[in-house]
């Protein structure tokens, strides 16, 4: 789960990472009220979960309370990469002398935690890696040993900061590492980490991504997760509440499969035969009839869908349960063709159920994909 900047800042506060004072608002007058408690000048920042908001006009300066209200009005409601801005953050402006980067990220290949630091910050870190790789230092941390002093010393030297700042830097690096580990982060970064004109280190932005699988041990994050539900489209929210893995796509062939890999392979095959998937929907392992019925109903209700392709390879999943689910969904929504390919556990029973309702079950996924593509073009 990606955190908004203001949510990340709350975590930074919890870990005593120095940052300018700030507050969040969802209306222009609220923004003014927030600013009243801070000292000018201010920065007003759009709160969205996509990058590039500065370029899109989502970050603006303000000197007075009136200006805060005015720019908040401009930013709230604007669209950044298709997402409407619903909240703004008002921060006391920091007098920046230099911008650095400090972050921790999971290293999937080495199975470690990587400390990344750069003497150039404030911009996309991948751009730094591409264009000025020598600005970047990367240290792999053994997850059992954790962050060690020599690592901090190496990074500090690389960043070429005044030696009087060592203790402050070490405190920030250690705090961010603790946050990363204790909050089960996939990513925790400060970009930019600013060196101010009066020689202090201050976090000017936060980016934190928390592992969804860990939320059971972070009740505060579970709370945020449920708030996120409200931000989804209706069909995505429905799918999430039903516990289905669903992703909306642009085509007209609804895809349902069991297992992420097989479902993606089904999408790919539909494209291979010239069709366009309308969605990805994985019913997961061992789905019972209700789950299948819900999944199929959801897809049949999507006006963009012209035909549905169901591809099931039963291991834990039982084909007869799937068939019963399909039948009950079609009793309610019998308006679109449904193509089924099914094999594996209790395959014969499943086929019998579907064929007794006039639904032919296809043997191979290639054939099923071809049939679905043809129907989508008819």
């Amino acid at each position, binding site marked *: 789960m990606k955190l908004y900047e203001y949510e990340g800042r709350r975590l930074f506060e919890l870990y005593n990472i120095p940052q300018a004072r700030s507050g969040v608002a969802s209306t222009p007058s609220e923004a003014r009220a927030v600013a009243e408690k801070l000292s000018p000048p201010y920065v007003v920042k759009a709160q969205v979960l996509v990058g590039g908001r500065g370029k899109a006009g989502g970050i603006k300066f303000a000197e007075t309370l009136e200006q805060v209200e005015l720019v908040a009005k401009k930013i709230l409601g604007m669209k950044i990469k298709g997402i409407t801005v619903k909240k703004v953050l008002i921060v006391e402006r920091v007098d920046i002398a230099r911008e650095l980067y400090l972050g921790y990220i999971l290293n999937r*290949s080495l*199975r470690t*935690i990587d400390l990344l630091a750069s003497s150039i910050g404030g911009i996309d870190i991948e751009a730094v890696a591409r264009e000025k790789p020598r600005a970047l230092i990367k240290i792999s941390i053994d997850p059992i040993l954790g962050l060690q002093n020599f690592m901090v010393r190496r990074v500090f030297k690389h960043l070429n900061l005044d030696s009087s700042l060592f203790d402050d830097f070490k405190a920030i690096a250690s705090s961010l590492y603790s946050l990363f580990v204790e909050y089960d982060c996939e990513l925790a970064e400060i970009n930019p980490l600013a060196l101010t004109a009066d020689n202090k280190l201050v976090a000017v932005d936060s980016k934190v991504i928390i592992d969804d699988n860990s939320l059971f041990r972070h009740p505060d994050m579970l709370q945020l997760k449920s708030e996120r539900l409200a931000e989804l489209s209706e069909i995505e929210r429905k799918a999430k509440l039903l516990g289905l893995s669903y992703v909306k796509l642009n085509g007209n062939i609804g895809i349902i499969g069991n297992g992420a*890999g097989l479902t*993606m392979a089904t999408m790919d095959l539909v494209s291979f035969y010239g069709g366009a998937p309308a969605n990805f929907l994985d019913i997961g392992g061992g789905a019972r009839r209700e789950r299948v019925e819900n999944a199929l109903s959801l897809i049949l209700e999507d006006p963009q869908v012209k035909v549905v392709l169901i591809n099931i390879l*039963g291991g834990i999943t039982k084909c007869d349960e799937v068939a019963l689910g399909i039948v009950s969904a079609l009793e309610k929504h019998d308006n679109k063709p449904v193509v089924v390919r099914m094999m594996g556990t209790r395959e014969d029973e499943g086929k019998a159920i579907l064929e007794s309702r006039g639904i032919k079950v296809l043997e191979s996924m290639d054939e099923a994909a071809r049939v679905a593509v043809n129907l989508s073009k008819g």
Partner: protein
Amino acid sequence: MPILVNEDTRLLVQGITGREGSFHTKLMLDYGTKILAGVTPGKGGQKVHGIPVYDSVDEAIEKHPEINTSIVFVPAKFAYDAVLEAVNCGIELIVVITEHIPVHDSLKFIRYAKYRRSLIVGPNTPGVISPGLSKVGIMPGKVFKRGKIGLVSRSGTLTYEVANEISKSGLGISTSVGIGGDPVNGLDFIETAKFFLEDENTDALVIVGEIGGDAEERFASFIEKTGFEKPVVAYITGRTAPPGKRMGHAGAIISMGTGDAKSKIEALNNAGIQVAETVSSIPKILFNLLK
């Protein structure tokens, strides 16, 4: 002798009294897997499908010193502790079926296993099967026919689909290893391929990859650097997946400019590995390479 699991496999089931653990213990027994014991803390003394249950791994090993492999069905919240316990008791191979384990937990138990020289397969894996000899996993045994093709995959049901095509073609499988769908895995493509290279029962290798991470790219550069004396065919799923969206399990996401199917396919092609466009075309490519 096939890799990882074979006729010498003597299995412990961790979480044997749970719904999944008990159900699959039955299926593995039916398949012929030699299961000696199960563990569920607090439930020692019971039997599940005739298999004795113990409170701890060391107790199980004390009674059944032949145990060399463990399969873990313990729920995600408690899986970390269960895997550490198995590693600590010196079990050589630990197959972690459990999905949704927090990735920081996996990082730590995988690292600890490296120190102690245990092998971990998974987490979030369908398991490992050497058809006809031993099944340590949840896969439907009947789609895996005995043969000489090694199979390594990141995703569950897709593995069954690929195995089914290979089995139907008459080629068959020597061992199928599900390395798991999570962002970090105990065994990766490269480590698994090294086992297959040494295995006289394996003539060719099929790699089933997907979007997310760079495991396929690293495998490609490993093949490019070392050469690989056995033919390799790859299949990558998620060609049509959009960036930034998690497609089902946690590992399958195109994020931060890396992990799309295109870069994986390019890397594999550049290493001289043929990438099948569809699952059903895999056997034909294998036949050509094995000619």
